[in-house]
């Protein structure tokens, strides 16, 4: 019990340390390829966990023989300018339960947005007041970000078609701090954004198309908001943090008892995300697949709350990924999945320069145990250009996931 508590607390802590330059746009950077199995293929809908299953696509889950509990964590290293940042975070926790190979259920918890970023002035600015020279600099930071709770359902329509849906509950908060440092005194302006929203993802997969007598696995997904993501912004009055604890208390100026109450503003439909994904998987040779996925993503949210560190937000993005995967053959001497992929991504940024991203994904999965347990290692290398402030950034992300299969909720006689 103690170890479980420790693990949970450490995972929670890790959310506060994920940083890359994209976190400064809008309400933060979006998490993608959340589970380790999909990192190597750089796509979401196409099989990457098993030869016919993607953990991100409920319309494929009915192919599972066992229930799986998957946990993925990632280490991300972002290199920008002459600095680099290495961070750790939980990327996915998911429970998938198939039922009679006909339908499936899933529940997941994943980070949705990350706002962990800190920027500061490189030089001190001088100001003269009453013949006294005052030196100051500014340091702006944001942290946290909303998470996503997901309830999923998959259903096999017939031998060729299957559908799935996910209900996504967005919740959580992020914090913004603007710090004006005058003569080593911190003048803090803090605010907190509370996110709430509901989205739905619709999936459809089919094997109806054949090429050379081999089916092409096609899958499409459409995500739309049921209720746009609303943001409640609590803005606290600026204060001089006399005791340098980053917390407004009675020892600060003005002391917390003499400060104004937080200003609460509600912003409706700040984020309205629509995305469409179409993907195809073709088995070139036995257990060797070629995969292609296209993503179109749009944010039509109002963005009335200007709490972005950069003053711009990502309004759309497009992604193309091409991947090759060799699946393991369970219960043989070939227990490994090997994955390699290339992807190209373009971010359309409101008010600022667009960002381009080119990346490479590599992955290895290892099957073990009678229930098809799997450890996945994923590596992503990406190069971003056109980033505000920093220009170019290089990302190295290493993802590790463990999926434990068992007979939870599955009747033994159906094995």
């Amino acid at each position: 019990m103690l170890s479980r508590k420790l693990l949970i607390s450490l995972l929670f802590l890790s959310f506060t340390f994920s940083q890359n330059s994209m976190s400064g746009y809008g309400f933060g950077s979006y998490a993608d390829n959340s589970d380790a199995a999909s990192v190597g293929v750089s796509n979401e809908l196409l099989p990457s966990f098993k030869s016919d299953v993607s953990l991100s696509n409920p319309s494929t889950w009915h192919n599972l023989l066992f229930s799986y509990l998957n946990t993925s964590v990632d280490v991300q290293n972002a290199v920008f300018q002459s600095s680099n940042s290495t961070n750790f975070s939980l990327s996915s926790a998911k429970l998938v339960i198939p039922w009679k190979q006909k339908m499936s259920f899933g529940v997941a918890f994943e980070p949705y947005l990350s706002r962990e970023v800190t920027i500061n002035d490189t030089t001190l600015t001088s100001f003269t007041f009453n013949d006294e020279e005052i030196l100051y600099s500014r340091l702006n930071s944001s942290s946290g970000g909303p998470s996503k709770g997901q309830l999923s359902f998959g259903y096999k329509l017939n031998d060729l078609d299957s559908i799935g849906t996910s209900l996504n509950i967005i919740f959580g908060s992020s914090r913004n701090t603007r710090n004006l440092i005058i003569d080593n005194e911190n003048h803090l302006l803090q605010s907190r954004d509370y996110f709430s929203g509901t989205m739905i993802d619709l999936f459809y997969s089919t094997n109806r198309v054949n090429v050379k007598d081999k089916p092409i696995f096609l899958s499409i997904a459409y995500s739309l908001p049921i209720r746009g993501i609303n943001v409640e912004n609590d803005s606290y009055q600026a204060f001089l943090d006399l005791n340098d604890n980053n917390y407004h208390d009675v020892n600060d100026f003005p002391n917390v008892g003499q400060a104004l109450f937080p200003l609460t503003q509600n912003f409706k439909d700040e984020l309205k995300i629509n995305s469409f994904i179409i993907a195809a998987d073709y088995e070139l040779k036995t257990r060797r697949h070629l995969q292609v996925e296209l993503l179109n993503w749009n944010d039509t949210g109002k963005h009335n709350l200007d709490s972005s560190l950069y003053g711009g937000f990502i309004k759309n993005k497009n992604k193309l990924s091409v991947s090759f995967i060799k699946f393991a053959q369970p219960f043989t001497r070939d227990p490994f999945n090997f994955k390699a992929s290339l992807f190209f991504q373009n971010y359309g940024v409101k008010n600022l320069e667009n960002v381009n991203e080119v990346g490479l994904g590599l992955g290895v999965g290892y099957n073990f145990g009678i229930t098809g347990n799997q450890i996945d290692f994923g590596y992503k290398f990406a190069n971003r250009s056109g980033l505000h402030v920093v220009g170019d950034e290089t990302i190295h992300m290493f993802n590790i996931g463990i999926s434990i299969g068992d007979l939870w909720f599955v009747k033994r006689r159906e094995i």
Partner: protein
Amino acid sequence: MFNYFKYPKIYILIAFFMISSCSEETILYNEIENPEGTIKTASLPQTQNKLYQSFPSFSSNSKLHFGNEKDSENLFSLVQMTLFSGNIPPVSLVDLLADSIQVDSAMVFFQTQDSLNTTFSLGLYSITSDEDSVFSDSLNYYTLNDFIDFEASSTLLQTVDLSPENVVPDSTGLDSIKFMFDSGSDNLENLKQYFFDADTYPARTLMLKDEDGSLDELFTIQSNESTNGPKMRVWFKAFVNEETTIDTFITFFSQSDMSVFIPPVIEDNDFNFISLNSGSGLRSIVEFDLGIIDSLSRNELFKNSNLVLNLESSNLTEEDEFYVVVTALQDSVESWSFSSPFIHNESDSEDEEDLENFVTDSNFIISRKIEDNQVRIPIQAFLQGYKNGLFQHNELMLYSAPVNSPFDKVRLNLNDIEVMYVEP
């Protein structure tokens, strides 16, 4: 059932990665935004000021003052003694005049922590007023309400010559000043007649006075408020019957006292400055134009905002320290002309409730010492409080700190307040 936690090494590995990899570098930024608007300044002009008189205040009530210092003149001090002695059974002053009592001698004594530089003669008088209490709150030296002319209504009982040689505090830090009334002397008879006879002279009050006004320094004795207050000891014999005579002494203690002096005079020139003196109760209230504060955003923070007052004139010596107190007011000033609780204009109502009573706001009270002929008092807390609605009035009261000598008086020039405010 599969035990999800049966792979502890994996989780230890995960925890290790998490702890070891959580490092964060800052993205360097050349210009965040709006660099010109981060720090701003403004000038808050003084719009009105008021000189007024409040009740005099002293740094300590534990001493009675003597001597003429600076522009102040000490008149006398009054000490009221208890009617009954502090011994069991209690004996009243009047009891000592009974036929069965023979007063042998008496001693009125005071204690001091001061040493003397000059020689002077201290006189001890008995107040022979028929008023039973000379410490009435309604006693007013300015309006002469309930005025008692103590000097005319008193009888000299004894004098003692004090000099630098005979006033030397010992190792306890104290020395005694004793007025002896020996047996058979006229002084003792006077004491019995004019002081013990509380039926005729109910005030039971002694007056101490610099007889010839030659004391040009401040000399103090311990008052009733201290643990070494004035006392009177009486030695007597009580004839119980022909065979029994009790030879004993009793002690009377002081129960209240006060110093009466003439403070520095309020002069016409005082009205041209911020004039402060606690002895005369001279204070000032200044109003500022704080209109700019209303236009500031809620996140502006005041910094480096000082009330700067230059010393125009004073009676301070080089050794003197003078602290100026600035405080906010709970109520706004209605009349900016001079006012005093002691002096009623013809137009003023006699009702005390109509008197201006400036109540200070304890949320902002600050003091600073005059240094290099200038005092700089930070008032950003007041300005921030005014901005946050903690203070409703754009006025500040200035007065002499209680630690200052009541005889010290300063005149100050006030400049506009130069303020700096920032927004993160």
